[in-house]
């Protein structure tokens, strides 16, 4: 299904973006043809399978019949709006993770979207890297390590119960917030997490800082967990965010 024709257009992006999780089946429910096509191509290019529905009713039918890992749902759709679609799905017992895309980026709208049964909310316009990272984190194929009490990446170990962090034989001293930052990164080890995801999930802020606050926190964390070790574990993914992983995949 990969379309070569538009490969050139996406080349710039694909050079530094790649799927950081196993292949997923995605359903994109979006009525704007151009953004929908762009999304389908972009997801396919990074190695996922993406289907497209052009309106709410079609989207609901496809979501209920198909086995999708994540649904990407536009908030305003013809025939059935995004929130009512999610409501209907949840009512029928379908728990597929849903990411809501919306031009309404306000705090209240996000809360409304999440209350309606959405799992994440991304205001338009967004960077594809942000969407990709969020979708991969949402995917139910990646729920694995969240239940464990100890996260391990390479020789880095984090104990969620005793709040101890160690790399190899060295015990590391982290501040509470650094611990939570590392915990979130390690929970999603091998996946890209964006700056906004960190701000939302580690700090619980939903605004867009005009400065590089998150980068400074990351560089502090990096100096504690990577400094003096041969193999860096905390990587910066250009144009997207950060990823913690062992070695080069």
């Amino acid at each position: 299904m990969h379309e070569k024709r538009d490969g050139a257009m996406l080349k710039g992006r694909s050079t530094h973006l790649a799927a950081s999780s196993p292949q997923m089946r995605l359903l994109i429910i979006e009525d704007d043809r151009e953004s929908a096509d762009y999304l389908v191509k972009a997801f396919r290019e990074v190695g996922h399978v993406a289907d497209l529905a052009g309106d709410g009713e079609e989207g609901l039918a496809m979501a209920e019949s198909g086995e999708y890992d994540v649904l990407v749902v536009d908030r305003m759709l013809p025939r059935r709006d995004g929130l009512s679609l999610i409501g209907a799905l949840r009512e029928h017992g379908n728990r597929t993770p849903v990411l809501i895309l919306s031009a309404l980026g306000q705090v209240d709208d996000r809360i409304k979207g999440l209350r309606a049964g959405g799992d994440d909310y991304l205001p338009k316009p967004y960077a594809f890297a942000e969407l990709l990272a969020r979708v991969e984190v949402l995917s139910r194929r990646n729920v694995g390590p969240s239940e464990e009490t100890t996260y391990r990446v390479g020789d880095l170990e984090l104990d969620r119960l005793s709040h101890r962090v160690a790399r190899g034989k060295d015990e590391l001293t982290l501040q509470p917030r650094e611990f939570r930052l590392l915990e979130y990164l390690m929970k999603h080890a091998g996946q890209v997490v964006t700056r906004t995801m960190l701000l939302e999930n580690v700090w619980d802020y939903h605004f867009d800082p005009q400065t590089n606050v998150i980068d400074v926190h990351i560089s502090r964390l990096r100096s504690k967990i990577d400094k003096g070790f041969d193999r860096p574990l905390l990587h910066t993914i250009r144009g997207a965010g950060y990823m913690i992983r062992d070695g080069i995949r």
Partner: protein
Amino acid sequence: MTAFGKLIRTTAFRLTLVYLLLFALFAASLLGYFAWNTRRLITEQITTTVNAETSEISDIFGRRGLRGLVFTVDSRALRPGANLYLVTTPAGQAIAGNVGSLAPGVMGTSGWSETAYRRLDDQDNVDHRALVNVTQLSGGFRLLIGRDLDERRRLFGIVAKAAQWSILVVVVLGIGGGVFVARRVLRRIDAMTGTTRRIMAGDLSGRLPVGRSGDELDRLAESLNAMLERIETLMAGLKEVSDNIAHDLKTPLTRLRNRAEEALAKSSCEAEYRAALERTIEESDGLIRTFNALLMIARAESGQARGNMDDFDAADVANGIHELYEPLAEDDGMTLRVRTSPAPVHANRELVSQALANLVENAIKYGKPVAAAQGSVVSMEARQILIEARCDGDRVFLSVTDHGGGIPEGDRKHAVERFVRLDSSRSRPGSGLGLSLASAVAILHGGELTLGDAHPGLVATLVLPLRVGHHDGLAAQTQDMSQKDVRLASA
């Protein structure tokens, strides 16, 4: 629609017609009842007197014989305004009375009947009508006593005439009144419609005419005028905002376009194109941020965010923002401190956090000591930015103090307005919306944003109302976080 058509379609006119019909029916039934009762009364009166006279005269005939009867009847018949009398022999010959002729057969049947008659002394040869009672006397004589019905008819005529006139008057007055009221209402409604048309055509300064009577139309006009006033203010505000947006979004858009054009014209290799595209994305991200900030301000100003209010301690927000920005400040060669005492508020936590974050970002960006910016060594004190949360009286103060250049007193009010970036900061990145957003958030919560002098430097304070029910007992305990290391060791 013709003027008349418009008139008769008015509610006032239709109501008038309904009332008119009701009143006419009422008048007609009243008069009808009156006429019918009068007629009954007159008939009753006639029968009573005739009956009495009949028994009296029968009595006289019984006592004094035919002569007595004839004498009495003739003498009574000659009185002015007398009743009708007639006495006939068994052969049907008239022997006494004042009746000249009768409808045939009346004398033959006993009892009451209505009949045409003429008096003996009548000159005009016209039949009159009368109610008569015929009685059989002994010996075959018959006695007729009756009463002319002209009086009853005349009375009936008067009533009928009264009915005609009164209905005519009701109709004329009713229609006239209806037209008057309807035209009056119509004229005022037309005036209102005219004004609203002008307003719809774009002249927002138009107002509906308000009379002095204070009636329902005046009250309607008054509230519509108040609404127009509000709309005009909002429109003026909107125009100002859109002018500002046009100016401050078009500038970066132009820059964006110029760069893209330049890249198209001059770039020769992929690296150059890539660099140009990256700059384009950066620039558009900046635009999106500006746009988001504007939306946020608009939302705060319109009061939409009031639905999401929680009870929380502003001191937590201050500590949270301090924790988030402390490393950034340090990287920038500044020290970020926090000093809090409990400051309970009922507010939108997200907005208050963002407003405080904006103030801190501003302080980090613009709060560097002037001497440091020029390359001289300055003390740690001067490099300090202090976030403070406290409550005083019934208000909560969230302030950020820096020791930079500050804002001259004359510029402070101006600085809170949208998009204003004082000349000294033009060269640095930022949308210029930080202070306006903070101000909008404060106003949304019924507070304000104040800018003051920190000698040197700027102290920006978000003033919020204290949560209701927390006026006492909080000011006492103040923990000075600035004195101890706020970086807690890992638990």
